[in-house]
């Protein structure tokens, strides 16, 4: 009797049996599903999370065929706390406090990001020189200008936006390989309403098929010229979430780049609602006390 189940064949069959459903599952994901999973992943990094980040910005140039800083980068260190709200926790509230440089220590930014495209995100800033909280107009934008920036970096509120997927046409362009990883190449085209608020006429996202992390994003203006590029690197699992610990965004118009390095990220933190209010910006005693409580949760 022929041995139909030789060890090699057996392994192959098992592999087919186990991998086929996964492959099928991946194929069944629509471009919209992929973007939703990506969004879920992004939100997970800011939902009930305490993070410490370093934000570096510089004018870039090329050396030995590689993009590098053409000047000394400006480095800011910040601590951020975020939490999900609303239906399926799709809205995000977060507060970021600058730790360094010394001259900017204590400057805080409170942001409310809404999933619903009809609601504009909100931002408040506390500047000790003014002695009060100041609302920042994030606003819509045209092709000549940038929406609200994160502490003067190339990261804008729009680049960090989650949700609002209903306002985009989402197309799978192709499956490709980026940085040695299998990726979906997905194009997002804003509808008329969103286009009025966006600087981009379309964006192309290279999404790691296994980890649902963006390895690269290309942003195009209304003339279909690439004006910004985002690169994700150091993809690692932090607290069970895949994350690009080093994200660089390059402004191809001004030739400036900003890098956000996630130095620490702790999720599953019990963040009280009161912490994500303007009080955290103005009431330093409250802020420091609550931050100590949040940090204490990490040690447990």
């Amino acid at each position: 009797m022929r041995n139909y189940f030789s060890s090699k064949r057996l392994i192959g069959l098992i592999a087919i049996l186990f991998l086929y459903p996964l492959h099928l599952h991946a194929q069944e994901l629509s471009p919209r599903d992929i973007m939703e999973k990506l969004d879920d992943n992004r939100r997970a990094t800011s939902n009930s999370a305490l993070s410490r980040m370093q934000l570096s910005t510089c004018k870039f140039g090329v050396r030995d065929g590689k993009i590098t800083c053409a000047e000394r980068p400006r480095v800011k260190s910040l601590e951020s706390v975020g939490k999900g709200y609303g239906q399926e926790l799709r809205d995000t509230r977060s507060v970021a406090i600058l730790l360094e440089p010394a001259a900017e220590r204590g400057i805080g930014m409170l942001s409310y990001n809404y999933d619903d495209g009809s609601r504009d995100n909100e931002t408040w800033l506390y500047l000790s020189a003014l002695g009060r909280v100041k609302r920042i107009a994030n606003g819509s934008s045209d092709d000549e200008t940038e929406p609200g920036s994160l502490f003067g970096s190339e990261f804008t509120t729009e680049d960090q936006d989650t949700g609002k997927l209903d306002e985009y046409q989402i197309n799978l362009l192709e499956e490709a390989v980026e940085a040695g990883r299998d990726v979906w190449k997905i194009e997002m085209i804003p509808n008329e309403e969103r286009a009025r608020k966006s600087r981009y006429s379309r964006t192309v996202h290279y999404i790691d098929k296994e980890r649902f992390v963006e390895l690269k994003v290309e942003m195009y203006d209304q003339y279909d010229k690439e004006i910004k590029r985002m690169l994700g690197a150091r993809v690692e699992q932090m607290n069970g979430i895949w994350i690009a610990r080093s994200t660089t965004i390059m402004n191809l118009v001004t030739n400036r780049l900003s890098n956000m390095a996630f130095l620490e990220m702790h999720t599953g933190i019990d963040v009280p609602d009161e912490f994500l209010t303007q009080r955290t910006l103005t009431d330093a005693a409250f802020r420091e006390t609550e931050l100590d409580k949040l940090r204490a949760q990490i040690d447990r």
Partner: protein
Amino acid sequence: MTRAILLASLAAGVLTTITCPVLAQDDVLVLDDDVTFDAEFGLDEDLFGDAFEDGSSALEKSWLDGFTIRISQQLSGQINSHGVELAPGFSLPREAELETSRLSAIVRYQYAFTPGWLVQASGWARAYWNGDYEYRAEGDSESTEFRVNDFFVQHSIEEHSFKLGRQTVVWGETVGNSVLDVINNSEFRDFSIIDIEDARLSQWMLVWDYFGEGSNFSSFINLYPEFNPAPVRGSPFFFEPPFNLIDYDRGSSLLFEAGTQWRKSFEGSDIAFMAAYLYENQLRYEDPLSGTGDAVAETNDFLLLGFSANRAIGKLLVNLDLAYSHDVLANSFSFPGTSSLANPVNLKKDQIGTSLGFEYAISNYQNVSLGIQAQKLLDEDEGLQPGQVLINDGVFGSWLLRYSNTLMNSDLVISSTLQGDLNANSLLALLGADYSINDNWAVSGQIVSISANDESPLLFFAEDVRLSATVTYSF
């Protein structure tokens, strides 16, 4: 002036020496702005790798981390020799001269020493060198001055927060010239400071904040109201008065100020209502009965009712402040930056005022803002002596236009300010540049030009041009 030029040259030399090695970036091809980006370029993998090698953690904190210290040397002077015609045939000579040459140390400290408790303090110390007007006022000798500005302890528990000590309370939404920004006194000692944010002085207060579910209350009581200091002898705002201008003699009288504000945020907007019993920050001076010695400083209390709101519309932020003041003195000069020139008369009036501000973010790097402040005395003719005319008749106030542009990777900030009164009697134009050499060193330069006609108290400074340079070390 020769000394000023020498010192400015020295500062420029230091700047060149410090910046040259920093700016030198050999081997890097700087891309043109219109370059087509080549997809073949990868990112230098070591570019930001150092960030992950830093083992420090936010958990490791020391009480020393709370210090921020800024040391700066400033030189400034009036550089346009000219004359001001105060009356036909009488011209006041305005010679070019060095006005300030001073070394300052500004220290700020904040430390949460135990859960729910925090101490914050800030203050400055200055040394006045040869050439500074304070040096001349001290009989040509070097002198020093110290001042504590903020110094308070804060305790926050549940929905409440209490702050006791020297602090400021800011109610106005409009940056620069809000009609509601009248709680703290201020000192515009010379033209190196023309922004109210830099001139505001802290006062001893107890502030109680209540953070409710949907809205907040903030209340204060001040049992030792302070007033705008008289111009410092020798400063540009000092004119030899017929009598000594002294601080208010409190005697046994208990002065106090108190107020409360209710604030609520809506999507895209914040609003606030406020009410306060205050003393005007500017004292009114009367001649001494004896005819010699010190002038008699008089205070004036008044009631303030206010409303403020902001609204974000796209990239435009609109701010509105409304104020109704009951029993303020007529002729209180309101031009920002020069309150020490005020000469209020002993005539109480009611006054309405508004400040309207527009802030527009042209881009990440460029901002422009416009603030208009307008006030009007109610029943302005009532109580006037026959033939008496008020300086502030009709609608009076000021406007402020600011523009800033951040360049060179945020190392260079260029800003300009135009400030004038609504009757177009005066204009103050400022152009400034701040350059950060690195995280510690910075240099800044400023030029201020003043135009004024004989209707304006700024007439004395008409055609003045002031130049200043400052080198700062922060850590």
